């Protein structure tokens, strides 16, 4: 491949979306991107250095096969962390009954042993969903570049990192070289200003933004979330917000690190300790968008306009405030009506219908979106002293063993138990129907996960996306319920 000309540009001039960079100020995304440029390929992508690669069992077996084909080792195994999460059952973790899923989980363990990669095995205290475990163990840190063969890698951007989902070919590239070839995305800042109304969470903020800008509104952009609402959010809330960036089309969702970030990361397992910590924080404090930074696009939303939300369709952007009705046909653009009607046909809903009060069959609390301690606290705050509705099957699935332990330490498990709920074992669970937690065809689920796609929770399953508060209220009444009215 000698014909390709390489230039080493120290200013990191990108081949598109770079107008922001020539302005005086530099945005957070560009600061981190520029600090990781190995080289700029002429009339081509950037070769970007990757600090952390996460591997799960689903999107890596073929990548390790590529390494074996080429007879090469993992270039920087100490920067790679692996754990199974998609296939792991949430009722017991002694075994995986499905032979194909079992083989995939075993293959990850074997690959990690062969290539010298740190592996958090199923059922051990280190295991959980990658996007929950990474931040809570401080394996994801401010200023890092982070990739994983999983679109919800955007989650880790909440600590102030560039974190992006990639494909399996790209996983192989990173395993082989600790770098990746990427075209620089454009930059977008989403400001959310003000105080969130009662019963409204980070999940509702994300569902609101998606409904405003559609599920492709941020395609081609890396998003930075800013504004007073975000500054006042807990780390868990920020992780939920960044997690859902991909549902707006953005591969990356960054939040500038601040005291909330530092307090969250301090003393966690892999965080720098002592003097190294102080030094790291000094560096991390430089990670913000300069006041005069220019973005390719900037939008601002008001927190007071946001309410508890639910989705009615088969993409996460098809949503409404919980006390609103599904749009009528007349309210939908003519070009979109066919898709609108086919979504409603699948969901068995009618245009103009009010969903509040609709009976639900399944309730799911968990996933990389809402499987953290704060989500369980929120759920428990609603169900405390009440009883689960008999018509509802509820899956309450912590995002990691650390979260599960914290739930028990705080006595939340007792509150849940008294209300008729069972706390399950860490797993991706019912988010994507790759383990036994599948919603049967035709059943209606209200879920804290991230996708309401056709068949996502199981072939023929119908999904309403909502916050932990809305799911908790609905689990008590057995119908779609506004937590403010319970």
């Amino acid at each position: 491949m000698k014909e390709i000309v390489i230039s080493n540009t120290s200013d990191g001039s990108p081949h598109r979306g770079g107008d922001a960079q020539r302005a005086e100020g530099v945005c957070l995304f560009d600061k981190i991107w520029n600090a990781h440029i190995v080289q700029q390929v002429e009339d081509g992508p950037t070769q970007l250095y990757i600090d952390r690669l996460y591997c799960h069992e689903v999107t890596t077996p073929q990548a390790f096969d590529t390494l074996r084909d080429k007879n090469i080792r993992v270039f920087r195994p100490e920067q790679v962390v692996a754990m199974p999460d998609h296939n792991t059952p949430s009722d017991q973790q002694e075994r995986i009954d499905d032979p194909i899923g079992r083989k995939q989980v075993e293959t990850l363990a074997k690959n990690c042993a062969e290539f010298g990669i740190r592996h958090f095995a199923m059922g051990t205290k280190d295991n959980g969903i990658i996007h929950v475990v990474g931040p809570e163990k401080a394996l994801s840190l401010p200023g890092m570049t982070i990739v994983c063969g999983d679109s919800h890698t955007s989650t880790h951007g909440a600590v102030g990192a560039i974190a992006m989902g990639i494909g399996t070919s790209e996983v192989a590239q990173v395993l082989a070289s600790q770098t990746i070839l990427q075209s620089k995305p454009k930059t977008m800042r989403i400001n959310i200003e003000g105080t969130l109304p009662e019963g409204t969470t980070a999940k509702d903020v994300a569902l609101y933004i998606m409904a405003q800008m559609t599920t492709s509104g941020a395609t081609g952009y890396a998003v930075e979330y800013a504004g007073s609402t975000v500054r006042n959010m807990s780390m868990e809330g920020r992780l939920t917000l960044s997690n859902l960036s991909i549902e707006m089309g953005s591969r990356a969702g960054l939040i500038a690190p601040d005291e909330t970030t530092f307090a969250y990361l301090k003393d966690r397992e892999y965080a720098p300790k002592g003097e190294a910590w102080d030094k790291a924080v000094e560096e991390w404090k430089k990670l913000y968008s300069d006041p005069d930074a220019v973005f390719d696009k900037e939008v601002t939303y008001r927190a007071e306009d946001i309410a508890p939300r639910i989705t009615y369709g088969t993409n996460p952007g098809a949503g409404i405030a919980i006390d609103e009705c599904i749009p009528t046909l007349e309210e939908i653009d003519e070009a979109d009506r066919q898709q609108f009607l086919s979504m409603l046909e699948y969901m068995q809903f009618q245009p103009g219908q009010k969903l509040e009060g609709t009976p639900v069959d399944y309730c799911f609390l968990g996933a990389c979106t809402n499987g953290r301690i704060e989500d369980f606290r929120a759920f428990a705050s609603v169900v405390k002293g009440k009883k689960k509705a008999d018509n509802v099957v509820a899956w309450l699935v912590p995002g990691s063993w650390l979260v599960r332990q914290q739930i028990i330490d705080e006595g939340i498990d007792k509150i849940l138990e008294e209300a008729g709920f069972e706390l399950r074992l860490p797993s991706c669970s019912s988010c994507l129907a790759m383990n036994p937690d599948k919603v049967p065809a035709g059943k209606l689920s209200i879920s804290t996960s991230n996708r309401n796609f056709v068949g996502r929770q199981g072939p023929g399953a119908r999904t309403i996306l909502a916050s932990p508060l809305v799911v908790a209220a609905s689990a008590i009444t057995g119908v779609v319920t506004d937590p403010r009215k319970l």
Partner: protein
Amino acid sequence: MKQKFDIIQSTCIPIQIDNCNTDLIIPARYLASTTRDPKFFGDAFMHDLRFDADGNAVSDFVMNKAEYSEEPKKGVHEIIIGGQNWGSGSSREHAAWAIAGYGVRVVISSSFADIHRNNLLNCFVLPVIVSREFQQELFETVAANPQAEVRVDVPNQTVTNLSTGHSESFDINGYKKYCLMNALDDIDFLLENKGKIEEWEEKR
């Protein structure tokens, strides 16, 4: 899977679904496999729209209609015309493997999700972005005449509706174009640049 790109002239499969996410392109249950067999993934392409729960072909789905059901071969159904925001959602490269495994070499749409677009390129399937008007014209042409051919000229970066003569140019960076035309992988390029990576690490 790695065929050199030059000019592709073929009939098309119109999949007129906006926001066709990768869960639709390949359902999650096919993701647990550790195989690299193109046929396994090709058979799973659009599976739950092509087949009902009992495995019977869904007769009114476009890929099962007589005029579009022939499996791709040179000049036949090598091109998909997809709805806007093609490949949104999950990063699963299995979706690109399914498209490649089915035998498709080009996907034309007015917009692609970012991760899926990269995955297609890495699987030697060319994503071609056209205007919404041209996308609509192509859907209309193919609906009126399933034998209509579209020509994708990679060296000149043009896509032409041979029925109307209308043509648009499409973007692809010089590096990737060179890779596609010479069937070269990104990973080989990166491996050739190990020295630069170590140099970067040292001066970090």
